[in-house]
């Protein structure tokens, strides 16, 4: 048993290092050029956003349309800090503070609104993110209003992206494999039964919002640091919908689904960049087709894991006789 565990762990580490090294190689050899790099950054940020929204909506079952709001808090906090302290330490402090501030707002918003369910919760979270946007527009003296902040120092590079993306995926995955994560999933399945089995449903709903908002804050911070320009309108209703689309497309309740969908949509988007009309049609078409033929999303609630590849490998190695 112990041997197997160690083997799995080793494989996981090798896989993670490999993923890092391959992209790093592509970046250093300029195969991922400056233009593709923006796509890479978008993919990474969208993965963080989608995986964390999946924790709230896919795993805990709380319909949220406010993720862009949390993201904007991270973006503004980090931007304001790095513009004053333009060092790597300032950047890291900015990311951390951005995440913490977003989590704080997640907590404050979570407490009163979590009595709501389904559509009502969606509307409340949407309202919350609109309020955040309007506050940023009106805090002229700090945020420069609707015009936004420009010339934010850029510190984001592939190593940092990788650390934050892998960190987010790993921590949320770990959480979901624990009793605390199972408590969240139980709420999605049946709130009354979950309460009756001793789960403090309010606590875990708020927790999901806090962790989800924390990660969205990180994503926002990375966004502002890479694209060096932010304005409140970037974090409106449409951005929240974009994130939700990734989550639903990948599968509510599947982390690897969110990752897959984030990559897929970014690739389509980049590939057809030069034909904007076709791009939007294709984008919509993909969504419609998938919702018709796979309403549960690409992966449903299943996960792609390394042990799956192991099993496949064994299948090949031993031929048909093996089960």
């Amino acid at each position, binding site marked *: 048993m112990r041997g197997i565990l160690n083997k799995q762990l080793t494989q996981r580490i090798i896989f993670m290092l490999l993923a890092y090294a391959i992209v790093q190689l592509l970046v250093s050899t300029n195969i991922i050029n400056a233009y593709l790099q923006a796509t890479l950054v978008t993919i990474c940020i969208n993965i963080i956003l989608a995986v964390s929204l999946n924790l709230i909506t896919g795993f805990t079952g709380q319909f949220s349309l406010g993720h862009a709001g949390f993201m904007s808090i991270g973006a503004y906090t980090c931007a304001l800090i790095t513009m004053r302290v333009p060092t790597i330490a300032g950047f890291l402090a900015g990311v951390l503070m951005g995440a913490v501030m977003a989590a704080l707002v997640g907590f404050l918003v979570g407490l009163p609104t979590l009595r709501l369910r389904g559509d009502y919760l969606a509307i409340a979270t949407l309202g919350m993110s609109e309020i955040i946007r309007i506050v940023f527009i009106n805090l002229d003296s700090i945020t420069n209003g609707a015009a936004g902040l420009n010339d934010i120092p850029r510190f984001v590079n592939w190593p940092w992206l990788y650390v934050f993306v892998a960190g987010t995926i790993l*921590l949320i995955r*770990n*959480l979901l*494999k*624990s*009793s*605390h*994560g*199972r*408590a969240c*999933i*139980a709420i999605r*399945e*049946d709130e*009354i*039964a*979950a*309460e*009756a*089995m*001793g*789960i*403090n*449903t309010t606590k875990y709903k708020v*927790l999901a919002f806090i962790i989800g908002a924390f990660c969205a804050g990180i994503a926002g911070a990375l966004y502002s640091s890479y694209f060096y320009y932010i304005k409140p309108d970037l974090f409106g209703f449409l951005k929240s919908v974009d994130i939700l689309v990734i989550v639903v497309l990948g599968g509510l309740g599947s982390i690897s689904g969110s990752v897959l969908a984030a990559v897929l949509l970014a690739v389509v988007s980049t590939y057809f960049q030069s034909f904007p009309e076709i791009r939007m049609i294709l984008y919509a078409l993909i969504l419609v087709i998938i919702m018709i033929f796979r309403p549960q999303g690409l992966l449903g*609630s299943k996960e792609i894991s390394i042990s799956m590849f192991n099993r496949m490998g064994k299948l090949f190695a031993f031929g048909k006789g093996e089960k």
Partner: protein
Amino acid sequence: MQLLAIEKLTKSFGGLTAVLNVNIELQQGELIGLIGPNGAGKTTVFNLLTGVYVPTSGNITFCKDDSKISLHGLRPHKICKEGVARTFQNIRLFRDLTVFDNVRIAMHKNVKYGLLASLLHSPSYRREEKTIADASMELLKIFNLDEKKDEYAKNLPYGEQRHLEIARALATNPELLLLDEPAAGMNPAETAQLTELIKWIREKFNLTILLIEHDMSVVMKICERIYVLDYGILIAEGTPDEIRSNPRVIEAYLGEDVSNA
């Protein structure tokens, strides 16, 4: 020793009084029946006991380690933590989760490792998860569900879903177990087996059980005392023999089969 005292419990839904001035007392280790015609208010009593509804008036006192706790107004998860577990009349399993996960989730209240440990999968996380997994498998074995641990709950046959609900309730490590019509929808053979099982888990887990059941063969056979509700009012209390021959009960059940069971 007294375990539960329900005094003058009343619950009104708008104009409808579902439960009125009900008194029930359970001694440690008893197996007590709660019967009554459809709509008598039995499930409502369970919902009041477990905090799903807040009583309109009355007291619910739970005695634990020589101290008395009022369950009135506590949220369901708190009541579960005090040691009251239940099953639901209209099965409420976590349908899209595995049999194994259904039971593991119910062990949550005794988990000691914190959020940080779960984010980092620390040694204390691993140790405790192993304990949870072992204990869950042990429970599933009792209900003959260990070989179906990876099956989705919704794919189990009806009878086994009822068994899984009991297993899940036991996973919370209760002192008082409330069973709401556990034999509903079972055939006579399954019912007989369930009856034995209820008797057996009471001994094995040192439980006090309050049982709602329409099937008189079950109630009359295993309950030491029986409470009878009709239109929200307690109309009788006594041993199975006393209840069988009670004219008010016979009247309430007019046309149903109490005396012959």
